[in-house]
């Protein structure tokens, strides 16, 4: 049992100070911008909640938000089942396990803009390996700078390449913690592979899968660098996800007020959906 100890605050103080410095000051700056209008020269006018209203009504924001939800939805329904299937088919022990884990973890340690650049040269029509294979060997016309559908397939494939391993490694960690005795008992009872999965493996993976889904949601919802480097949001606006649109408004057009209001709405949506996921996935624990 944990003991009551108010002095524990001193242990937490360094963390608190560092994170507060990084989180509170910038977020207050954003709040400050979101309610004011500026014409430069550091002259600000009170604007109230006008920016929020403007963003919430703007079609551009709705479109970017829609693309963002579609992207995150596709990522989750592809990466989570795929990751679980791969984890289930991995050997549980042996010399190949560390080799597999190291190779699988590799994409996650590549800087994000290098991931974008790498996929760019991989998919160049006629020059890149994938672009050449699709266009010149299979005869499928593929050019993601022209075709929005090809651009979408490419950014989804890139993210699956980049992050499925996170789900694999987390699920695998859950699987190896199951004692052999459970499997032997299931064998004696004549349980089918599906039953073994449903009643032994899945419950053991639940905690780690919750972490995996939460992390994948947060990170795919906040994704910026990789699609920006790969497609720049194009062709047209077809792959302009929320972060890309936000940076366009904030740094491209320097509309600080609307950008700040959009940031806060964006952050609030991320928090809300994460919280919903979290409560939904931990609710079943009681049953």
């Amino acid at each position: 049992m944990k003991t009551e100890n108010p002095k524990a605050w001193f242990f937490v103080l360094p963390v608190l100070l560092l994170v507060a410095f990084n989180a509170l000051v910038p977020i207050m700056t954003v709040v400050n911008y979101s309610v004011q209008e500026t014409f430069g020269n550091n002259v600000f006018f009170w604007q109230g909640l006008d920016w929020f209203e403007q963003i919430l009504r703007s079609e551009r924001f709705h479109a970017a938000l829609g693309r963002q939800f579609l992207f995150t939805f596709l990522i989750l329904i592809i990466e989570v089942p795929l990751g679980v299937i791969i984890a289930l088919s991995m050997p549980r022990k042996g010399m190949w396990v560390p080799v597999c884990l190291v190779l699988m973890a590799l994409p996650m340690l590549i800087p994000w803009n290098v991931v974008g650049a790498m996929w760019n040269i991989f998919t160049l029509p006629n020059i890149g390996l994938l672009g050449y294979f699709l266009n010149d060997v299979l005869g499928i016309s593929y050019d993601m700078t022209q075709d929005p559908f090809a651009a979408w397939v490419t950014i989804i494939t890139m993210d699956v390449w980049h992050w499925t391993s996170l789900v694999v490694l987390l699920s695998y960690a859950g699987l190896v913690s199951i004692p052999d005795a459970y499997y032997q008992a299931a064998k004696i009872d004549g349980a089918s592979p599906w039953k073994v999965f449903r009643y032994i493996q899945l419950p053991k993976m639940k905690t780690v899968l919750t972490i995996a889904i939460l992390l994948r949601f947060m990170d795919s919802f906040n994704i910026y660098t990789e699609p920006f480097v790969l497609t720049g949001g194009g062709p047209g606006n077809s792959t302009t996800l929320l972060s890309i649109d936000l940076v366009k408004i904030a740094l491209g057009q320097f509309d600080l007020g609307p950008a700040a209001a959009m940031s806060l709405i964006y952050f609030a949506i991320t928090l809300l959906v994460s919280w919903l996921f979290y409560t939904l996935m931990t609710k079943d624990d009681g049953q």
Partner: protein
Amino acid sequence: MKKRSLIPILYIAFLMLPIYWLVAMSFKTTNEILSGFSLFPQTFTLDNYKVIFTDPSWYWGYINSIIYVSLNTVISVAVALPAAYAFSRYRFLGDKQLFFWLLTNRMAPAAVFALPFFQLYSSVGLFDTHLAVALAHCLFNIPLAVWILEGFMGGVPKELDETAYVDGYSFPRFFVTIFLPTIKAGVGVAAFFCFMFSWVELLLAKTLTAVQAKPIAAEMTKTASSAGYELGLLAAAGTLTIIPGAIVIYFVRNYIAKGFALGRV
């Protein structure tokens, strides 16, 4: 059993293809790349690497990245250790709320913070220093380190602490000589994750630096756009950014399965 192992093999092949292509490109001349498709480098060249190792703006990019990533890893783990200990051992006013608030910082889109971070670090005079990037990355690395370490510490029975106090150990001596060695796998895993997320992040690192502390990844975007389209050079620089990550994974390979479960399985 044999058929099942086909799935991981296919998956790893899929993972390796783009990496192979990047490495293969880095050994080709720009002419060869643009003149058409070739699966293997026809005229094998090390010129791209030679450029990177002889041009200071290139190799300093690597040194800068390694400096701020190491600095960030040390700071994050050092301050997360006592905090994680407090969360795993004590109850105190607002502990649960504080823990959740720490985690919410992991959810903030970096794009939201880019501009305010620039202003904040400029106003305290840290703009374009390694320390600025290292401190900024604490925003998402400290919560993660606290989370991982708390998981590992929760697995250590409380009797260990009590026995040590009975034996007359002071808290700092107990923490350093007994407790830390017990959770050294956790420290390794936390350090690995801090290294990873600081190494791969670019948006904040690029926003907070100009010349002195410019990361390698930002160097790549600059050269790719100004010097035309030097794909070979870009590929060589990209290949070199994979190496530090590969070295770090090799060291933690035996803890990796447990570490990804954040010690909570």
